[in-house]
C-alpha cells in the first residue's frame, strides 16, 4: 500500500509543482539493433547480428519544476523508422529417409545460417522524464509495431551427409543424395516470418540540452531499448529440420528435393534490443511564465550556478 501511495505521489508531483513547462521536440534516432537470442537445442548455436536503425519522432514533454535545478514529468511520443536485425548460428539435424528401394539413409545435415529481418516500425512512447539542470533522463515503456517486414535466410557451409548403413558408405554433398549450393539465399515467407506484430520495450535515455534561445534548444541523447517479451514462437523440442532432404521416391527422377525451413524452431528466446543516439530540436509550448522561469532557471543554472531561484 505504501508503495502505491509513493508511486501516485511521484506521478502527480509535476502537477503539484509550483512551476511547470511543456516542450515539443522533433528528433532523429540512429543506431544499431539486434536480437538477444538463445537456444536450448544442443545441436544449435545462435546469436544476434547487428543491423542499422533510424527513426524520426515527435514528442511532447511536460515538466514540473520542483527545485531550481530539478524537474520531473513525463514524455509522450510517436515515431516511425526502419531498420534491420538478425540472427546467425549453426545447426545440425539428423534424420532417416528410406528410398524407393528400401535402402535406409541416415542423414546428418549441418550448416551455418544467417537470418536478416528488415522492417519499418511505428512506435509510441510514454516515459517518466527527469531533468537535472541541462541533463535529461527518460525512462519508460515504448510500444513498437513493426510493419512492411521482410526476412531472408542465407545458408552457408551446408554439409549433407547421407549414410547407407547397409553398405557403410557416406555420400556427402552429392546431387543424388542432396546438395545445397553455398551461400544459398532464401526469402522467408510471411507465414514463417517470426517478427512479432507488436512488442513492448523498456527504454532509457540520457542526454544533454543546449539552449540557444529562451524557447528552444538542441538536445543530444544516448538511448537503449530492450524487449520486455520473449518473442520466440516455437518450442525447440518440436523442431523440424532446417535443411530437409526429401526421400528418393521416383525411379525416373531420383534426385531428391532439398528444402530449407525456418530457424524459428531453433530459437528458444529472442528479445529485441536497439541503442544509439537521438538528436532533437525542442521548443517550448508553455504560455505561462513558468516555462520562462524554468528556462531561465536552467540557463542560469548552467551559467551562474545557484544564483537563480524559482519564482
Amino acid at each position, binding site marked *: 500500500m505504501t508503495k502505491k501511495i509513493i508511486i501516485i505521489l511521484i506521478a502527480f508531483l509535476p502537477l503539484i509543482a509550483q512551476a511547470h513547462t511543456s516542450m515539443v521536440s522533433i528528433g532523429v534516432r540512429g543506431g544499431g539493433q539486434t536480437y538477444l537470442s538463445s537456444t536450448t537445442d544442443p545441436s544449435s548455436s545462435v546469436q544476434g547480428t547487428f543491423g542499422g536503425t533510424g527513426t524520426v519522432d515527435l514528442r511532447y514533454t511536460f515538466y514540473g519544476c520542483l527545485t531550481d535545478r530539478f524537474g520531473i514529468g513525463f514524455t509522450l511520443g510517436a515515431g516511425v523508422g526502419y531498420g534491420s536485425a538478425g540472427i546467425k548460428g549453426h545447426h545440425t539435424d539428423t534424420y532417416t529417409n528410406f*528410398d524407393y*528401394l528400401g*535402402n535406409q539413409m541416415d542423414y546428418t545435415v549441418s550448416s551455418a545460417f544467417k537470418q536478416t529481418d528488415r522492417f519499418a516500425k511505428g512506435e509510441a512512447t510514454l516515459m517518466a522524464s527527469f531533468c537535472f539542470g541541462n541533463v535529461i533522463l527518460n525512462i519508460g515503456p515504448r510500444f513498437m509495431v513493426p510493419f512492411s517486414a521482410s526476412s531472408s535466410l542465407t545458408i552457408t557451409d551446408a554439409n549433407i551427409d547421407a549414410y*547407407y*548403413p*547397409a*553398405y*557403410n*558408405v*557416406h*555420400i556427402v554433398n*552429392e*546431387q*543424388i*543424395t542432396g546438395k545445397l549450393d553455398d551461400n544459398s539465399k532464401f526469402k522467408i515467407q510471411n507465414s514463417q516470418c517470426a517478427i512479432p506484430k507488436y512488442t513492448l520495450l523498456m527504454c532509457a535515455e540520457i542526454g544533454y540540452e543546449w539552449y540557444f534561445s529562451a524557447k528552444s534548444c538542441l538536445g543530444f541523447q544516448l538511448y537503449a531499448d530492450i524487449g520486455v517479451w520473449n518473442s520466440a514462437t516455437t518450442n525447440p523440442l518440436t523442431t523440424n529440420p532446417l535443411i530437409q532432404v526429401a526421400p*528418393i521416391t521416383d*525411379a525416373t527422377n*531420383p*534426385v531428391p528435393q532439398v528444402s530449407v525451413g525456418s530457424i524459428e524452431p531453433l530459437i528458444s528466446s529472442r528479445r529485441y534490443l536497439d541503442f544509439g543516439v537521438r538528436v532533437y530540436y525542442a521548443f517550448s509550448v508553455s504560455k505561462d511564465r513558468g516555462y520562462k522561469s524554468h528556462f531561465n532557471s536552467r540557463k542560469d543554472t548552467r551559467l551562474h550556478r545557484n544564483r537563480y531561484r524559482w519564482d
Partner: protein
Amino acid sequence: MQRKLLIILWLALSVPIMAIDVPCGTWLTLRATAVEDWHFERWSDGNTDSVRLIEITSDTTLYAHFAPNCGDYAALPVISLYDWLLLLDVQTIQAKGYFFAEENVTWYRVRGAPDKIDEGVSADDERMATGYYLTIDQSFQGTGDYYAVVDVSGSPSGLLCTSLMRSELVHYTSSAAPPAPLLEPTMVRPSEPQRLLHLNPDQPTTVTIFDMNGHRLQTLSAKGVERLSIQAAPVAGCYQVLVQNGDQRTVLRYIVVN
C-alpha cells in the same frame, strides 16, 4: 673341386622343385617366372629380384615365393543405386577382413577392354574419382562401364589378397542393350550360394567355372531361364565364370575368402 647342391623350389600351385649339382664357386643366374595370373614376390633369403646372380659356395636351398594376381579376379561387390550412384559395399568387404580407407579406392571408366591391374597401374581406362562411391551428377545409363580398384595393403596378413583388388564391372554402356549377365554376390564364403542373373531365356546358356590356373572346375547348361543358381567353390581363391548365352560371351569373376 667339391660339388655343391642347389635346391630351388617354386612355391606356386604345383610347387615344382629343382635340384642342381654344381661345382663350388659356380655363378648361376636364377630366374623366377610366374605362371599366368600369379606374380613373383621374393626369394626365401629376402631378395626381391626375380632374376638374380648367385655364387654357389655351399649347399644352398632357395624358395621362390609367388602370389596370385587375385586383384583382377576379386570382383569386389558394387551396389548400383538409381542408375546414379555406385557404392562399394564396404560393409561386406570389411566383414571379409579387408580394410581400406576412402583414398584407397579409385574408380575407372572402361575404355575398350578393362585394363589388367596386376601391375598396379591402369593403362588407358579413365580415372574418374577417389572414394567409396562414384556419381557423375547424371544417370550412368549410356555413359560406359565402371569399376573400382581398391588398395587393401593395409589389411591383416594372411588374406588371399593384400594388394590391389578390382571391383565387379558395372555395365552402363548402352541403355538400349539388354542387361549383361550378372553374378551376385561376388565376394563369398566357400560353397556359398550365388545367383547368375540377366540370362537370355531364348538362348541356351552354358556356364563354365575356372580356377586361377585355368583349370575347369564345373560346367552347367540351361535353357529357357533368366537366372541360374550356382555354388561357390569350396576353397578360398579367385575364380572365373564364363557365361556363354547364345552368341553372347561374358567373363565374370568372384572371390572366395575364408
